[in-house]
């Protein structure tokens, strides 16, 4: 499952890839079987009727700026929920409120039946929400593989004995295990060939993809993707679209922010449009796309 857009990149960097390869990693062999990604977390597949996330009358103010005004949002379990809106309409702010970077000025966020309003980001992450950032944030001085292993923080525990009382160059069982698992996540997003490269050397599109792999590694129930195709070409976008479908197929719920209307239309089950921090339309992609307010605010009116 190699991403088409990454192929030509490898030709150039294959030598480098080996060069940067973490030497504890060369024992990796590819005959391991695929594990089921994220499956244990989810009940149904492909858009059940349960709401996994609810935003109730969420308001977020920054000083005088009202970024979110009374936003209600229901995300069905197992669906891909598109979020569109002009720049500055509050999409990223919505993500930040859900993931706990900001606590809302008022309103409630309910995830999986639990009120997570005002929790710290790491607590929310523990509850099973993973996210990516509009501008990719990867750890540049770690290998791609290590980045994904870092994403498994939540699904592992610090094993003092294994960490400190093994021989220096012998890995603990857990390390070995997550190394293989991380490799599988990389294979899943098509970055396996780059596993040994430095994340800082990846190009923008690859960093976006790496972010997704890292978020997936935390095995979230809900994945927030903030413009995963920003700065990508058509071919690359298509790959991401395909990736989103596959993540969904594993049962993970996704909220997707994208400016690319075509992507949103094709990939999402439901779309919400917001403008100036308030919801202006919600429904099936085609409905929303043709909603006059959305056309006016976001897509632009025909003359």
């Amino acid at each position, binding site marked *: 499952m190699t991403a088409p857009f990454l192929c030509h990149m490898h030709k*150039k960097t294959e030598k480098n890839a080996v060069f940067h390869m973490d030497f504890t990693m060369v024992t990796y062999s590819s005959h391991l079987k695929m594990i089921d990604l994220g499956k244990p977390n989810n009940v149904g597949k492909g858009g059940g009727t349960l709401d996994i996330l609810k935003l109730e009358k969420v308001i977020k103010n920054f*000083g*005088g*700026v009202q970024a979110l005004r009374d936003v209600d949002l229901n995300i069905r379990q197992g669906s891909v929920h598109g979020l569109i809106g*002009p*720049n*500055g*309409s509050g999409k990223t702010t919505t993500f930040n409120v859900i993931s706990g970077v900001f606590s809302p000025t008022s309103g409630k966020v309910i995830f999986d039946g639990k009120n997570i309003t005002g929790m710290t980001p790491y607590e929310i992450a523990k509850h099973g929400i993973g996210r990516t950032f509009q501008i990719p944030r990867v750890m540049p001085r770690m290998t791609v593989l290590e980045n994904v292993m870092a994403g498994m923080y939540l699904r592992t525990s610090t094993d003092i004995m294994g960490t400190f009382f093994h021989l220096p160059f012998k890995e603990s069982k857990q390390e070995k295990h997550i190394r293989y698992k991380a490799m599988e996540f990389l294979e899943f997003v098509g970055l396996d060939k780059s596993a040994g490269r430095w994340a800082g050397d990846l*190009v*923008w599109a690859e960093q976006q993809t790496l972010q997704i792999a890292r978020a997936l590694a935390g095995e979230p129930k809900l994945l927030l993707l903030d413009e995963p195709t*920003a*700065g*990508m*070409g058509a071919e690359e976008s298509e790959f991401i679209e395909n990736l989103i479908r596959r993540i969904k197929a594993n049962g993970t719920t996704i909220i997707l922010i994208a*400016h*690319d*209307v075509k992507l949103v239309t094709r990939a999402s089950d439901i779309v919400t449009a917001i*403008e*100036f921090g308030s919801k202006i339309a919600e429904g099936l992609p085609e409905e929303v796309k043709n909603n006059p307010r959305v056309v*006016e*605010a976001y*897509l*632009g*009116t*025909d*003359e």
Partner: protein
Amino acid sequence: MEQMSRILKIEELSVYYGQICAIKRINMEVFEGEIVTLIGSNGAGKSTLINTIIGLQKATKGKITFMNEDITKVSTDKVIKRGISVVPEGRGMLASMTVLENLQLGAYHKKNVIEQNLEKVYERFPILYDRRLQKAGTLSGGEQQMLAISRAIMGDPKLILLDEPSLALSPAYVDKIFKILVELKKEGMTILLSEQNAKKALQYSDRGYVLDLGETVLDGKSSDLAGNPAVRSAYLGAD
């Protein structure tokens, strides 16, 4: 437009960010007194082109000529001094400085015209006069865009570059902004703007270039472009 003099000329310009090629061998011209639009989707290279013109981004190859002088390797401040001004993407407010201070800095290289240009700006946008002592960061999006444009004309530039002026603006504001641009054109300024909102932009501009993945795929009169089926399907939302 042949009789007009050429103010900006770009020849075979290529820009790379590391390995990524953001702009591939672009050629374009801007003549005095016209509005030229750069159309392109996200990541097409519009901002990169504008940043390269003002020297914020290094050109990998090619040549940029402004008023018959080569400015390819000239530093940003000197380019601005020669009479180009920019309305940056996302408006580029100096958020914790006041509206007045933002305006004053717009004429950094022409201190002597500040007073008279301030008057003109306040006349055109009375709201800025009311808000002149407010912090720029607390203005609404539309007001910020007005401020950004006003700031760009404070120094009496010959050429204004606008990077997505309609960004995050409600349609009402978008129309207002474009009408202002047309007024500025009438006053003799030359305008080069980048837009994703191709429909509006083509409606108000004289000519346009269509950028895709860093290359100019089409160019011509705005009306021609607007009628072009390829442009219609790709940028004007007509599937």
